[in-house]
């Protein structure tokens, strides 16, 4: 008989603006299991976990840990009750070392001073015990995302967390890092820890989790043993209808070249070469996928094309016009749209409303202005239309974007970028953190844009996504193009993986084929 370690009983959470994010939600978790919490964007998963971690206070409902009722008023009390949380957005201090981040708030002292060596020892003890390989003396800002996450997990564990909440931990990880994380999480489970795991990727849930609970529109609508249900069934429980995970797509009919990148070289602020002399082209009416482990120069390419980042050598032209030295607005007016992977920095103005965000790239245009004033009616019509069309869950077009759920923020970005009649779309991780239903929708829209004659550059760490959507494909490795695959449907996952990891590489001639005029 499994022992119930946590029971959240009939939790109701109403945000100060009157929005009911959780309504009578019940969540029961057994000791030593990995329990998945799934649901569409805005279903209330993060909210429920914030209640458990003491960040939000529920209006109604009770929480029992090991059969005893507890009141959790703040994160400190959650920690005292053995609950630890790895947040959707990391809670780390970049300029401090790993050890300093780990002991922050419970610093060891010697002679009144902070004892750094002791902090290192505490960290290394956890590193060894839980097999989470990360260097205690490294600065957090120098670590790749996967390692930052390990630091977060260690932070929770050294504070004695028995129940570990992971809110979309894999959204920012590469497939390799995800695999590593899963090994570590299973190891933790075997040591008796209990894990609550939130993800939109159903294959991950199938692979990792024991049981699952489904939330829909703030209510718990189902529970299941993972082994007993298929991915199709899970998504049906989440969305309430059948979801087509496969996108229907005809063969591309590429026309003239829109984007031409030649001998592009980009260096970082510290002088490291990030993108090393690469050339490629994207044609009207095709989707060129860029596969590769994240951090191999993909983001810099997309930022260079859209004018966010300067580049040192080479040229980038869009429909024959050089983008070098042009302002971002000029580049956008050439028909370039950009879905940035970093939605909080480049995607949205978090404290502004949905309406202001969707018109932020066109508010100055004649059609939205009447003389000196903005045309309120037109702007409102447009934002209402986009909210409806892109299924953005918000109760009001003036709702501040930061109050939306992670996935709905992404939809705000996509709505703006896909609706300005783009000639070229740079889509960098367009479906990151988005639920299955909305992912299906965004992928369909991308294919529709292509069919309408838009050139699409699709950058994604999600292999399924690149393979499924792309017509042709380049693979990035350490700032180089490692391979060009003219027909994306002809390559297997395995082979792609080998190019991504740099095990295999095409000849320069083969790669040069992607630089047509």
């Amino acid at each position, binding site marked *: 008989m499994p022992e119930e370690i946590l029971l959240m009983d009939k939790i109701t959470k109403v945000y100060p603006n009157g929005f009911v994010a959780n309504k009578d939600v019940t969540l029961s978790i057994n000791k030593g299991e990995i329990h998945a919490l799934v649901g569409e964007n805005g279903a209330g998963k993060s909210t429920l976990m914030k209640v458990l971690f003491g960040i939000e206070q529920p209006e109604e409902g009770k929480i029992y840990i090991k059969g005893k009722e507890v009141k959790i008023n703040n994160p400190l009390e959650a920690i005292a009750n053995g609950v630890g949380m790895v947040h959707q957005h990391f*809670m780390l201090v970049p300029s401090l070392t790993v050890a300093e981040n780990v002991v*922050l708030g*419970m610093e060891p002292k010697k002679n009144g001073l902070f004892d750094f060596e002791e902090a290192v020892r505490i960290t290394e003890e956890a590193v060894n015990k839980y097999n989470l390989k990360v260097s205690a003396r490294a600065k957090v800002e120098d670590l790749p995302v996967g390692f930052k996450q390990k630091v977060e997990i260690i932070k929770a564990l050294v*504070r004695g967390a028995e129940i570990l909440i992971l809110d979309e931990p894999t959204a920012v990880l590469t497939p390799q890092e995800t695999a590593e994380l899963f090994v570590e999480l299973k190891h933790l489970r075997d040591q008796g820890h209990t894990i609550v795991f939130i993800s939109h990727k159903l294959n991950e849930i199938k692979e990792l989790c024991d049981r699952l609970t489904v939330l829909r529109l703030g209510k718990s609508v189902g529970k299941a043993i993972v082994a007993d249900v298929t991915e199709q069934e899970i998504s049906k429980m989440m969305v309430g209808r059948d979801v087509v995970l496969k996108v229907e797509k005809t063969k591309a009919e590429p026309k003239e070249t829109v984007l031409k990148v030649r001998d592009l070289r980009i260096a970082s602020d510290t002088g490291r070469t990030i993108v090393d002399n690469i050339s490629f082209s994207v044609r009207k009416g095709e989707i060129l996928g860029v596969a590769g482990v994240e951090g191999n120069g993909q983001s810099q390419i997309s930022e260079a094309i859209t004018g966010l980042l300067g580049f*040192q050598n080479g040229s980038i032209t869009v429909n024959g016009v050089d983008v070098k030295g042009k302002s971002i607005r000029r580049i956008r007016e050439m028909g370039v749209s950009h879905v940035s992977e970093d939605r909080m920095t480049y995607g949205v103005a978090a404290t502004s409303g949905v309406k202001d965000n969707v018109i932020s790239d066109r508010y100055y245009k004649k059609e939205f202005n009447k003389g000196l004033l903005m045309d309120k009616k037109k702007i409102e019509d447009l934002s209402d239309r986009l909210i409806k069309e892109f299924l953005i869950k918000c109760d009001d077009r003036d709702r501040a974007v930061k109050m939306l759920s992670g996935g709905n923020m992404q939809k705000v970005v996509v709505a703006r970028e896909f609706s300005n009649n783009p000639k070229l779309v740079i889509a960098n991780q367009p479906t990151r953190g988005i639920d299955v239903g909305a992912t299906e929708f965004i992928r369909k829209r991308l294919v529709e844009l292509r069919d309408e004659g838009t050139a699409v550059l699709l950058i994604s760490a999600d292999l399924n996504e690149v393979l499924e959507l792309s017509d042709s494909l380049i693979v990035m490795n350490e700032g180089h193009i490692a391979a060009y695959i003219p027909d994306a449907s002809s390559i297997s996952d395995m082979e792609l993986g080998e190019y991504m990891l740099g095990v295999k590489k095409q000849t320069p001639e083969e790669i040069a084929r992607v630089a047509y005029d």
Partner: protein
Amino acid sequence: MGEGLFSQIFDLLFTTSFAASILRVTTPILFAALGGLIARRCGIMNLALEGMMLTSALTGVVVSAFVRKAVLGDLMPADAAYEAVSGRAVAAGAAAGFLAGVLCSVLMGLFLAYMAVQLKANIYLSGLAINTISTGGTVFALYLAAGEKGMSSSLNSCTMPVIDIPIIKDIPIIGEVISGHNIMVYFALLCVPLVYYIVMRTSTGLRIRAVGENPNAAESVGVNVKKVQFQAMALSGLFCGFGGVSLSMGYVSFFSRGMTAGKGFIGMSAMNLGNATPIGTTIAAFLFGMFDAMANILQSLSVPSQFIASIPYVATLIGLIVFAIQTDRKTKRLKEKHSK
């Protein structure tokens, strides 16, 4: 006139008294910069440095004068016991003035924290408001205490002692430059490693840095963010208060209206130029102190005084611009070098 003026300038600048005056002039700037440093490390731009210094300068003078008077009682210089009591009175007055001035600045730091952290008022506006209140408030208080609106010279206030460093004072040149300063000069130099230790080596310092960089992260592990911000602002006020009393109880023994003359803001710029690191901040403070000292010395020449008075501020501005350009160039160079 050109050539004559330049040789005059050179004669003035290459003297031990000029070198010594750099140390003297830098002291309040350095204190203010250290105060600004701690505030900035915890994420608060303390624009009130100027007003806090000014108020503590006045408080120091007034309290020291009162305490001195109280200790002396009715004794007159002609009295026999005067000699014996006078020394004690000055010492007590100086100590009390020092403590009161510093305490006043600490309280103002806490008040600013209360405004910005607790009541969530805009930190820049709150800081500027404190400066404005201090400018007028000190004149008003001065009038109440001394019956004057310009200077406190009618008050018999005390100064901190001057220190002759043994051995060093006998070395030619070096002795003249380094020895024989007011104790606050040496104390300022001692405060540099002190601030380094507080910020970089104590757990409070670690929390201050964490809160300054990512308050959410600090909060999520149970750090009391508000408390840390109050602590940092109290420390900021402490160092700023040292700066204030060093102005009115160091080389001069009076308070005059507006006597900070922008030193708080110059300290602020030094801290920014030094990127809030103790060493960088100190170097920048000395740089600005040098220009300030230069302006003092050049006043004896036939150059328009308005021009000379503007030197430290223009130097500050140029310093900030050069720093920004340098940083920009450096990254550019790095990028170019690697893209050959």
